[in-house]
């Protein structure tokens, strides 16, 4: 199967039906539509903020067989991710980390999409995908090296098919697209998920990744967490139309999902991945969510947004929502929550201890891995640096 033939086969059919219909439904809406409770026709939702399971003809089948244990698993993932995130914020406050980018509020979007993946799928994250990293099996302590300043990425991307965090906004969507083009060339049925945010949606690279993925029919899911804020700029500063509608212009479907509904995020991502595996090309998923904390620990959100908005979103908390659902369905007992609480504390302790024990790298790490095949200038500068260092040792009579 060639890339060219699948592009010709699928782009009209799938893009036409899906994007066309969502586009019509959403006409006249604006970015904050999801703030309306529950009844928003644009928003795919399977669990209401009260934890009530609502039917959805299109997406129910992707979570139809989900067991109580799997639901508890999603809850556990979200709780542990939040606990890890809180610990990292504390560690920054204690001076152990230079910076932390909290995912508080985005647990459902990340765990739901992350748990939809197969091992052979590949993820290209931003710098906030701690929940997705968790789902991929990346040790959370490895995420902290770059925030402590001991490295710029402390894990092997191919170890868990989870690429390094990308700080330049939107760049990774092109890497994801290229990787997906490679999957198609290999004839594999794996897929790629490119994470990005509402701010990144303005970047040219994101638009170019939409173009390339559409033209080459690449098996990539663009998972946009619209958390309403790009540092201080609201989504209205990035777009006049709901972000998911942009996909239509590129010829592939886009859908907006309740990003605080882990079940809906799981279902919609599974649908999008299924399309990718079936040779139907890219999909844009806009997970409508909220960044409950600051952009990073260096940010002060009180300068640009009020409590009212945050309180409204707290009522839609992703973890609380699933807990209500689990309890009303009698899927859990007190023992489960107590055990999870203990596990959370143990995780926090492990992370804390790991960070405090994280050694500073050797000075000569500066010169390591600049090139794979070496470079004469790097060798020369390393040698000069060594001689310079050694000159102090001589002076001290060591």
């Amino acid at each position, binding site marked *: 199967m*060639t*890339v*060219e033939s699948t592009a010709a086969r699928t782009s009209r059919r799938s893009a036409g039906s899906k994007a066309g219909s969502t586009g019509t439904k959403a006409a006249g809406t604006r970015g904050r539509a999801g703030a309306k409770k529950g009844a928003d026709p644009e928003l795919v939702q399977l669990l209401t903020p009260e934890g009530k399971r609502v039917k959805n003809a299109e997406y129910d089948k992707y979570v139809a067989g989900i067991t109580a244990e799997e639901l508890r698993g999603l809850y556990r993932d979200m709780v542990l991710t939040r606990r890890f995130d809180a610990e990292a914020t504390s560690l920054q406050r204690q001076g152990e980390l230079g910076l932390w980018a909290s995912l508080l509020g985005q647990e459902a979007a990340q765990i739901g999409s992350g748990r939809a993946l197969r091992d052979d799928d590949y993820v*290209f994250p931003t710098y906030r995908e701690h929940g997705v990293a968790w789902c991929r099996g990346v040790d959370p302590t490895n995420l902290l090296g770059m925030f402590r300043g001991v*490295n*710029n*990425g*402390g894990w*092997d*991307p*191919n170890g868990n098919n989870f*690429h*390094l965090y*990308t700080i*330049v906004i939107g*760049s990774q*969507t*092109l*890497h*994801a*697209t*290229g*990787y*997906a*083009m*490679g*999957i198609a*060339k*290999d004839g594999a049925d794996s897929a790629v998920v490119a994470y990005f945010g509402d701010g990144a949606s303005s970047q*040219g*690279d994101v638009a*170019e*990744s939409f*173009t*390339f993925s559409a*033209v080459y029919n690449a098996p990539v899911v663009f998972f946009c967490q619209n958390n309403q804020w790009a540092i201080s700029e609201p989504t209205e500063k990035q777009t006049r139309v709901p972000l998911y509608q942009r996909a239509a212009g590129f010829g592939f479907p886009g859908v907006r999902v309740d990003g605080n509904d882990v079940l809906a995020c799981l279902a919609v991502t599974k649908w999008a991945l299924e399309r990718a595996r079936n040779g139907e090309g890219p999909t844009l998923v806009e997970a409508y969510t909220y960044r409950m904390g600051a952009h990073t620990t260096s940010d002060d959100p009180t300068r640009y947004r009020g409590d009212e908005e945050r309180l409204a979103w707290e009522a839609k908390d992703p973890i609380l929502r699933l807990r209500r659902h689990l309890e009303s369905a009698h899927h859990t007992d007190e023992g489960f929550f107590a055990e999870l609480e203990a596990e959370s504390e143990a995780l926090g302790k492990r992370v804390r201890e790991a960070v405090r024990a994280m050694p500073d790298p050797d000075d000569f790490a500066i010169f*390591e*891995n*600049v*090139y*794979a*095949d070496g*470079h*004469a*200038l*790097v060798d020369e500068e390393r040698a000069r640096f060594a001689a310079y260092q050694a000159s102090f040792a001589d002076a001290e009579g060591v």
Partner: protein
Amino acid sequence: MAAEKMALAKAINESLRRALESDPKVLIMGEDVGKLGGVFRVTDGLQKDFGESRVIDTPLAESGIVGTAIGLALRGYRPVVEIQFDGFVFPAYDQIVTQLAKMHARSLGKVKLPVVIRIPYGGGIGAVEHHSESPEALFAHVAGLKVVSPSNASDAYWMLQQAIQSDDPVIYFEPKRRYWDKGEVSTEAIPSPLHKARVVREGTDLTLAAYGPMVKLCHEVAAAAAEEGKSLEVLDLRSVSPLDFDSIQASVEKTRRLVVVHEAPVFFGSGAEIAARITERCFYHLEAPVLRVGGYHAPYPPARLEESYLPDLDRVLDAVDRSLAY
């Protein structure tokens, strides 16, 4: 084909063909590289023989080309990307500098980025704006990138083979005004190391160091100077990053004078780095300051003015005279 005289552009074409034949992971990507064979026909016939999946006509988006090439490299491919003209590389500059150059280090050596970016560069062809620039210093300044530029058909062939085999990203600057110059290419030769300079004309009175399109000019300068009884050595640097300072030093210790020639603006150009380092290395050998001949600190001018902007025989000879006058 063992040894054959061919144009520099054809040598690149043959080199790409060989890479496509010998490694199924090699891909060609760029604007118009497929059916058209590139605007300079450098990729002529490759898509016909290797298919659209390996010789890929891309959307007109340079950041997208390089960004997806990075993704393909992460998947195990070895993309050879063409940027259509020097002045069009800047939309991709972000991907090249922030991602391509740094990802190997960012991953602590876990991932490699064997991506070659071919860029036809330099002036002298009477083109419109953005089609005649020499931005090599902007890439040489970035750790993680290697920057090379062949001056002749044989080097064009072999240096591209080596660039493609390199596990590091290589910016491969093609001297577009020399595309049609013919030279002997032996496909069975044992090539010199990619980043090694080469003495292409021996001399005793002064060293001319150049790369890419200016090497031919330096040959002409040396021939003209010889008529005046001056013996100039010509050094083809071949690689801008890394620079082969050992070879420059060896030549300067012999001739005691150095003039660096490039089309790029002199200010912060590769000649500045060479002058600084050679002054440091050869301070007691030098009879004159290292001089530079290159473009001016002005936008590349309209075509009718480019002869006045570009280094030519007289301007280089003028620098030679100034150096010898010390």
